[in-house]
């Protein structure tokens, strides 16, 4: 494992044009991943997780304004022309999408879809690509891969379809794998199998992985480092273990407390987070979480708080960590 980061994101910002006017969907996101490292992104819908992923993939609409820098092996990706991006996408960076139903084209056989990135990027012959596609489908645990390579997506179950999209993403042995809620549409038992599969492939091929999920449990078990996003900014980041041991940001704590958990008997009240996620087109000037925070003060609303280091590269974007992390704090 070399020391230079494989992918380095600095102060990434994305402004989208929505029907409500321009919206700053992502602000000041920075991270670096070395080969073989894993990073988790957690947050609720509309917090900027998927926009961050799409920015890395170069899949944002043309009207989106991207600031900051994304470097892959030192080469700048922001502002790269589309033809150059096409050579990277599916080749060096690839992505597993949430909905295997919509990520697959119903009109093409699965063999065709898995072989497509190989034909496009590696210059192998059609026969070789087909052979490789069968090997990939076999590796991701699709039963009878050689027989079913000419089947269509509707002939597979949800878990099998997700295995097929994983095979597509892995076809060219990418350096960076982005998994956007890869198991949200699946049953818990299948979720376990798919996450096991992704973990062993990441290990086997020395990829870097960015795992996006709204499920704190999935994040806790699958990544080394994590970032919690809210209102387009990273509100807390650090080693997964450190964050779960001592949660610093009131939002992370709120998310953790709001989960129903096993063993909480009937009649237990869940602790909700008051209010709703702010509109990205209409973000408050100060801390984006201030309106829903129980310990917010006037100065929280004045300006976006800076990241406070609370030890061992564990950063919290909150000026009241003295209060939020006091009294035992929240963690498991």
């Amino acid at each position: 494992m070399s020391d230079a980061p494989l992918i380095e994101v600095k102060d990434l910002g994305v402004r989208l044009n929505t029907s409500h006017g321009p919206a700053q969907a992502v602000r000041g996101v920075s991270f670096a991943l070395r080969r073989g490292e894993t990073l988790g992104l957690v947050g609720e819908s509309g917090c900027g997780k998927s926009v961050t992923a799409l920015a890395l993939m170069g899949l944002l609409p043309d009207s989106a304004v991207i600031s900051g820098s994304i470097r892959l092996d030192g080469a700048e990706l922001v502002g790269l022309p589309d033809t150059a991006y096409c050579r990277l996408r599916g080749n060096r960076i690839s992505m597993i999408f949430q909905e295997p139903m919509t990520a697959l084209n119903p009109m093409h056989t699965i063999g065709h879809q898995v072989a497509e990135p190989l034909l496009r990027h590696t210059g192998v012959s059609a026969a070789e690509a087909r052979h490789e596609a069968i090997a990939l489908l076999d590796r991701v645990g699709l039963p009878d891969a050689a027989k079913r390579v000419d089947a269509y997506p509707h002939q597979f179950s949800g878990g099998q379809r997700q295995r097929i999209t994983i095979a597509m993403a892995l076809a060219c042995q990418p350096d960076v794998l982005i998994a956007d809620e890869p198991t949200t549409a699946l049953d818990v038992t299948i979720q376990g199998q798919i996450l096991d599969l992704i973990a062993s492939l990441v290990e086997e091929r020395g990829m870097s992985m960015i795992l996006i999920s709204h499920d704190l449990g999935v994040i806790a078990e699958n990544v080394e480092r994590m970032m919690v996003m809210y209102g387009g900014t990273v509100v807390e980041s650090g080693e997964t273990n450190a964050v779960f041991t001592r949660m610093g940001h009131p939002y992370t704590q709120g998310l953790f407390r709001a989960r129903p958990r096993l063993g909480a008997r009937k009649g237990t009240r869940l602790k909700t987070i008051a209010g709703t996620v702010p509109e990205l087109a209409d973000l408050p000037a100060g801390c984006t979480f201030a309106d829903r925070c129980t310990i917010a003060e006037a100065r929280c609303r004045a300006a976006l708080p800076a990241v406070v280091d609370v030890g061992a590269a564990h950063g919290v974007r909150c000026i009241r960590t003295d209060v939020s992390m006091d009294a035992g704090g929240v963690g498991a």
Partner: protein
Amino acid sequence: MTMPDQPSPATPLLAVTDLAQRYTLPRESLFKPAAQVHALNGVTAQVMPGRSLGVVGESGSGKSTFARLVMALERPSSGQVSLLGRDLNRMPPDELRRARRDFQMVFQDPYGSLDPRQTIARIVAEPLTALGRMDRVTLRERVATVLRQVGLRDADMDKFPHEFSGGQRQRIAIARALITQPKLIVADEPVSALDVSVQAQVLNLMQDLQDEFGLSYILISHDLAVVDLLCDEIAVMYLGRIVEQGRPADLFAHSAHPYTRALLDAVPRARAGGVRRRRGAQAIGSQASAAAGCPYAPRCPLADQHCRETAPALRNVGDAHLAACHHAEAVMALPPVVAEAG
């Protein structure tokens, strides 16, 4: 159980007896009979007034078929569904229509289940208008009351679904179910499409409504923690059968079926030191074949020859605790799957 037992009259609110549902697949050959899917294979369950039943299982376990049959949206191949002692499938259509005021449904997807072209007032009032004529003023009053009960405002009545967030839409769907003052609400994955913080709000609302109106829920979910929170009894389904049934505390502390253990074990734990726990690869069962033996045997780590030859019947393994496993006692003796800390 922390909840005091409510005085329950002898007749169950809902009694489901030996319910089975088969669907016929398209014919594959002219000369062979069309294959069938056994979506539900002899399910028996009861719900007492004011109590709630949770149904868990993977997709394809028959949870949603169960919900559709309880709601009398389909006719079962065999078996009975009776609400307050009356068999829903033997009722004349007119009477069934009137009986529907007592049982209502909340669907999974709050985006798909509300008509985008109708106002909230019309959507919420629809079950009432379907029951008979009612003058406009009373109708709007009823809608306003029920909207307030689910935490929305009267002013929301004339808006359209797209003006609401996912959590608010699910509140509207709950208001629509509540307006006929039902005794039973069947909720099919009511919170799985919602964000964590919104999910908590909707679950708290469902608890409040139960306390206030003495409703019963049949809650269908793949999330064990959600059913644990809302239900008095849980039925675990696998390939159209109930494989384990009991109170949440018993079921989770002393699971008697290996499938329940597998489900519990698969839930990711949100805590520090969550090292990836490897689960062995599991073959996925098929509903099309009605093979002899225990349907879970191909996935079961404890399966032996006896399991593969004889299907286990659902039997008592404790006080109000049923399981369909030859090795139930051995499974119960295993240390409990670690409960979540915190």
